[in-house]
């Protein structure tokens, strides 16, 4: 890889600042829980399914517990206390009974607390062991079928809204060269405070993330992996109001990558910032344990802000995502930090600016896979021009050693991808990879040249921004980052810490709060 002449001291400073910015947020996450964290704990303990109206049992159970005793001590103690007491034979029965009002919950104390705690630990521990088993299974299958033979890995989206149309399309994409399949979610799912159940066929512009859809797709891709002799990875979204639960389901169904950003929900879904940070930490602990690679969402900033002016906000977000991820136990190889080819193609030297930004990310995070996103906002109905832009995006990915290449579609500005769009897109990737595979050998941006200068500038602006974030004070939570978010620092969106969706699902932990999942996940890391 070409080397940018970055000052190692500046790099260290940037990382140190990001950690300082993150610290109060981590503390905040440690002081709170959310309905979704608690439901995820129930799911790890094996609670699944939904009532006849489609409301998942974890929601029914949690709501009853909350009504009875609150969740500031965690859902585990009241739930396993009830089970220990013999209120029901298992979690599912307990949920059903709770739903009809035939169980009342209490906060156990003394020996009851000890019993409840140990029962909870056992039950949740089984779920964590399933995460471990799934991870080992993946490792075994990757060994058997093999990793993609090349870098970057080829990441393709399916988005029909119908899992049964998604499956053959995903298999076709894999046969045509995709290494990673992402099933895009239906619009609106991120604002649901529950995870739908079962196989689904009616999403809008995407398919619902459900445990059953995960299972069906993973099974289909296992089949195709065997056929191709290459392990095809499956991606979904641990994002939105149910981030922790979806993370848990992903781990249980052996998904391989999850979109999981520390601020996306805040900025793009107007989800409450505290809710997001709490959920995020839990979900990342799960991902860490499950051996899942996370993909962060910096690319999204560039769909609303200008990709040159806001380049440093991408870098800052990557540094923050890294710092939060490390704290939650994720290893470098699990950090698919996001960035994107979103500079206005009319801008002079736009391609070289892209190279500068991509190399900066590559050099700042040498051991992270990096997720390289294609042009979207400057794509138009001119599909020919779009196909060309995607080719230069592919070239930038090859030249700068990106780890995961999200394949761009010529119909980006028109429709969710067609079967043929995906095939054409893969053909584009193949051409570039094959024709220019070794071009990095000839790519040497001079230390005082346009590219290196631009990279240094973005790094300097990032340090500057991190310092400004630290300077922010915020009345309620006292954290610089929350105040900065409230200010519109990222993606131009203003999101105050006490606004947004899902705030009513955030609860400050009481003394004696127990969450066996968190305990187990933290013990490991």
């Amino acid at each position, binding site marked *: 890889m070409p080397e940018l002449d970055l000052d190692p001291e500046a790099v260290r400073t940037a990382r140190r600042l990001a950690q300082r910015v993150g610290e109060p947020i981590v503390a905040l996450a440690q002081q709170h829980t959310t309905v979704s964290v608690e439901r995820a704990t129930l799911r790890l303990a094996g609670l699944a399914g939904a009532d006849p109206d489609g409301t998942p049992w974890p929601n029914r159970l949690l709501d009853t517990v909350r009504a009875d005793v609150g969740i500031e001590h965690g859902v585990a103690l009241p739930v396993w206390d009830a089970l220990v007491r013999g209120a029901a034979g298992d979690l599912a029965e307990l949920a059903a009974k709770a739903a009809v009002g035939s169980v009342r919950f209490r906060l156990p104390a003394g020996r009851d607390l000890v019993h409840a705690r140990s029962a909870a630990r056992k039950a949740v521990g089984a779920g964590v062991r399933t995460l471990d088993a799934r991870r080992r299974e993946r490792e075994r299958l990757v060994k058997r079928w093999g990793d993609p033979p090349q870098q970057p890995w080829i990441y393709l989206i399916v988005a029909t*809204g119908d899992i049964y149309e998604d499956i*053959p*399309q995903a*298999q*076709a994409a894999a*046969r*045509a060269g995709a290494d990673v399949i992402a099933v895009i979610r*239906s*619009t*609106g799912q991120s*604002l649901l405070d529950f995870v739908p159940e079962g196989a689904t066929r*009616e999403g*809008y*512009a995407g398919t619902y993330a459900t445990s059953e859809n995960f299972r069906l797709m993973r099974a289909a891709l296992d089949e195709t992996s065997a056929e191709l002799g290459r392990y095809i990875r499956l991606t979904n979204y641990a994002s939105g109001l149910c981030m922790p639960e979806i993370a848990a389901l992903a781990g249980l169904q052996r998904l391989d990558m999850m979109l999981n950003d520390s601020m996306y929900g805040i900025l*793009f*879904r*107007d989800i409450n910032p505290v809710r997001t940070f709490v959920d995020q930490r839990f979900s990342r602990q799960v991902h860490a344990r499950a051996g899942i690679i996370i993909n962060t969402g910096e690319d999204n900033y560039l*769909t*609303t802000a200008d990709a040159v002016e806001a380049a440093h906000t991408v870098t800052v977000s990557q540094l923050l995502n890294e710092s939060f991820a490390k704290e939650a136990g994720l290893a470098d190889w699990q950090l698919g930090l996001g960035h994107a080819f979103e500079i206005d193609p009319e801008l002079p030297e736009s391609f070289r600016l892209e190279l500068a930004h991509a190399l900066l990310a590559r050099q700042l995070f040498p051991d992270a896979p990096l997720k390289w996103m294609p042009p979207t*906002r400057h794509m138009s109905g001119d599909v020919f021009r779009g196909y060309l832009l995607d080719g230069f995006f592919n070239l930038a990915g090859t030249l700068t050693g990106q780890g995961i290449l999200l394949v761009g579609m010529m119909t980006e*500005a028109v*429709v*969710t991808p*067609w*079967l*043929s769009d995906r*095939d*054409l897109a893969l053909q584009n990737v193949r051409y570039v990879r094959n024709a220019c595979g070794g071009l990095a050998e000839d790519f040497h941006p001079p230390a005082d040249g346009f590219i290196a200068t631009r990279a240094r500038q973005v790094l300097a602006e990032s340090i500057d921004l991190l310092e400004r974030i630290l300077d922010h004070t915020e009345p309620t939570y006292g954290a610089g980052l929350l105040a900065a978010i409230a200010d519109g620092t990222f993606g131009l969106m203003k999101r105050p810490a006490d606004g947004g969706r899902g705030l009513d699902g955030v609860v400050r932990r009481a003394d004696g709060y127990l969450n066996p999942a968190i305990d187990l996940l933290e013990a490991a890391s």
Partner: protein
Amino acid sequence: MTTGAIVRPYGDTTGDGMVQTSFTLPVPHGKLAEGAALQLATKMGLEPAMVVHSKPVGDGYTFFVVYGRANHLVDLSAVRVVERDYPLLAPKEANLAIRKGVRRRLTVVGACIGTDAHTVGIDAILNIKGFAGEKGLEYYRELRVVNLGAQVSVPRLIERCAVERADAVLVSQVVTQRDAHVSNTQEMSAAFREAFPAERRPVLVAGGPRFDESMAAELGVDRVFARGTTPAEVASFLVDALVTKGRAVSAGDQGRRSA
């Protein structure tokens, strides 16, 4: 109808009728598939048609590129265009018209409805920053803009419109899979008709890149804006509908209205 009103597609010679098309058929690659592609092209009116590319995609599908001569005539005199039927005003002119016509600020409520979260388009119309070098509606002194943002449900939108006494409602719809933009907009307009008596219903405007501007009636709204709309077009339309055509109640009569 003048003779100049009839045109044909142009490849490299007037009247050659040439067009390019591409599509996928659920037929395995081979002669049958090519024949099927030619049949489709013929049904589309391409004659002669040439299958210049065919490639297997997926399992049992074939992608085609076809070139051919379209035998259709395009009759320009029969083209129905939604022309701007109101004058295009600069911000100053719009402000003046409102001040003179209704003697109060007009309230505009904007939102992305349904599960759509694409706010860039509506923000381009509403935010000061604007679009294509034009300032957005927030820049107009005589317009009060309430931007509700993304994923606003219809009931919530109606509630806020009532509270804010909206003169106009601007909704954006970008996602079109399964015709979501059409059904969401229809649901919205029906609910407004139900919630407000006709004379108090705000002017309803829908916008988004895949709308067809001639769909207003079908959608139940007063106006539709599509790809490339600029804020001044929208402001000028609002002035025309609310001031010139008198849909908005002027300041003097406001008491009666709010009664």
